[in-house]
Structure formats: C-alpha cells, structure tokens
C-alpha cells in the first residue's frame, strides 16, 4: 500500500472514532455551557433589537456577526448535534492526517514503526500547539461574549500555532543550547506581541460560566489529542506494515 493511502486510511479510521467519542464527551462538557450562554446571548440581542430601530440592528448584524438572520443553521437538538458530530469527525481526520504525516516521515527515517506511546507524545504536542498556546492569548470563548474582529484573532491564532510548533521542533529535534533558547523565545514571541482584544468588554454571560468553559474545552481537547495521537499511530503502524516489510 502506498504511503499516502496508508496515511489516509489510518487518519479516516482514527478521526472517525475520536470524532464520535469527543462528540459524546462534549455533550457533557462544552455543549451544555454553550447552550446556557446562548440564552444570555439571545436575551441581549432581543434587548438590543427592542432598543434600536430595526434598520440599525440589521446593519449591525451584518457588520458584527456571522449569524446572518437569513443564513441556514441546523435546528436545535438532533440535527445540530449531528452536524457537530460531522464537524468533529472532519476535524479529527484533518488533524490525524497532520499527525500521520509526521509519523510517516519519522518511521521512514528511522526504519522503525511508530509506537502508540510515541504517538501519544505527538498527540500531546498537538494539544500544546493547538490548544494551550493559542488559548493563553485567546481563551476559549462562549457565544455572547464580545471579542476583537474575527480575522485579526484568526491571524494571531495561526501565528501562535506556527511559532509554538517551530519552537517545540527546535527544542526537541535540534538538541543544542542555542536552538533550545531560540525555541523558547519563539514560543513566547506571539504572547509578548499580544493577542488582539477589545478595550472594553460588556457581556451578561457570567464569568463563572466562562471559566467553566475554559476548563471544559481544555479537558475535552486533552482527551481529543491523547486519543488521536495514540489511535492514529496504532492505525498507521498497522497499515504501513506491508510497505516497510
């Protein structure tokens, strides 16, 4: 089996399983908090609509929100959760493809298959790169909490991810003092620059709810990355066997 096919097979299987498990975990962790926050979000929107003339609200909606009134969205309940499951599975497959690419390069260079334990370590690296690092500057946010313009946050998030992965790479694979120092500096750099934030945030979403959400997102993400690292490496070691034998 070609390397690409082995990677895709392993990633689809691991991503599917992890996506389903994480969807179940989210139903107890993050989703109830999102639904609670939306009650506050909707209450604030109604208050806003009542206070402002309709055409002003419309302009505001288009400028500030992605929730266009006319755009399709899944109905609450089963439909919404099915789309969440689908998006989780796709996210799992996407990140599994990324991990598996590294596994393939590593096992190609060493001639040894990747163990589940090494896969778990790569998964934890993914947790550090994609959750911890961007989450320091841009903590997980509930609906209804105003934030800086979307594009600027997406750019900072991407920068933090790139800097952290490059920094960790320098520390882990270069094994020299200057590279380690450069790695640490690189990891710190986006945080020294600072994530985009609003000067004044006004929300009626309680801060205790926001704090619970940060914990829930971080723990869910830890489950996601640990499982994804372990399962993807095990699946890849299985599918890649004939080619390396």
């Amino acid at each position, binding site marked *: 089996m*070609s*390397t*690409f096919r082995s*990677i*895709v097979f392993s*990633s689809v299987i691991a991503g599917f399983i992890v996506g389903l498990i994480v969807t179940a975990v*989210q139903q107890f*962790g*993050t*989703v109830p908090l*999102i639904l609670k926050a939306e009650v506050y979000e909707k209450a604030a929107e109604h208050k806003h609509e009542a206070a402002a003339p309709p055409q002003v609200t419309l302009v505001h909606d288009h400028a500030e*929100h*992605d*929730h*266009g009134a006319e*755009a*399709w*969205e*899944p109905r609450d309940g089963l439909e*919404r959760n099915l*789309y*969440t499951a*689908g*998006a*989780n599975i*796709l*996210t799992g*497959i*996407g*990140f*599994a*493809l*990324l991990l*598996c*690419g*590294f596994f*393939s*390069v590593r096992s*190609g*260079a060493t001639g040894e298959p990747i163990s589940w334990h090494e896969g778990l370590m790569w998964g934890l690296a993914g947790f550090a790169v*994609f*959750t911890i690092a*961007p*989450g320091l500057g*841009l*903590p*997980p*946010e*509930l*609906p209804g909490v105003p*934030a800086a313009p*979307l594009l600027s*946050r*997406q750019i900072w*998030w991407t920068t933090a991810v790139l800097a952290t992965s490059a920094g960790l790479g320098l520390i882990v694979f270069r094994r020299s003092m200057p590279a380690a120092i450069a790695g640490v500096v690189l990891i710190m750099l986006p945080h020294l620059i600072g994530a985009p934030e609003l000067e004044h945030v006004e929300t009626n979403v309680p801060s205790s709810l926001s704090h619970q959400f940060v914990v829930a*997102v971080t723990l*869910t*993400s830890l489950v996601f990355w640990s499982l994804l690292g372990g399962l993807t490496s095990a699946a890849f070691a299985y599918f890649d066997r*004939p*080619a390396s034998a």
Partner: protein
Amino acid sequence: MSQSPAAQTQVMQSQVTHLPVAARQVGRLAQSLMAMTLGLFIVGVVGFSHIDVIHNAAHDVRHSNAFPCH
C-alpha cells in the same frame, strides 16, 4: 480485471522495492507532505471558513475547540 488483487499487490511491491532508497524516501516525504496539506485544508474549512453556512454547521465544534469564532 485480468490480474487478481494479490498479484497486483505483488507487482506494486516489487516496483517499490526496486526503487533506490533515496528515491523511496523522497516519495515518502512528498506523500506525507501531501497528506498533511490535505489535513490542514480540512481543519481550515471546518474551523476557519467565513462562509455562514459552514460556520453555523460547525458552530459548537469551533467553540469547543477554542477556534476563533463570531
């Protein structure tokens, strides 16, 4: 189909084993990079697309993964 799947696999394997080691490594690297690019593209669409319909479908996942949302 003229060949059995097992015979086809054998042909593919013999082609792979006849390649020099360096060429095999390059092929492996290129295929790995291709897979990683595909992975990042999928995550990008699910987590970062500004298209309303994609945003609404993946809304809870974006919040749960702390991808920038709204």
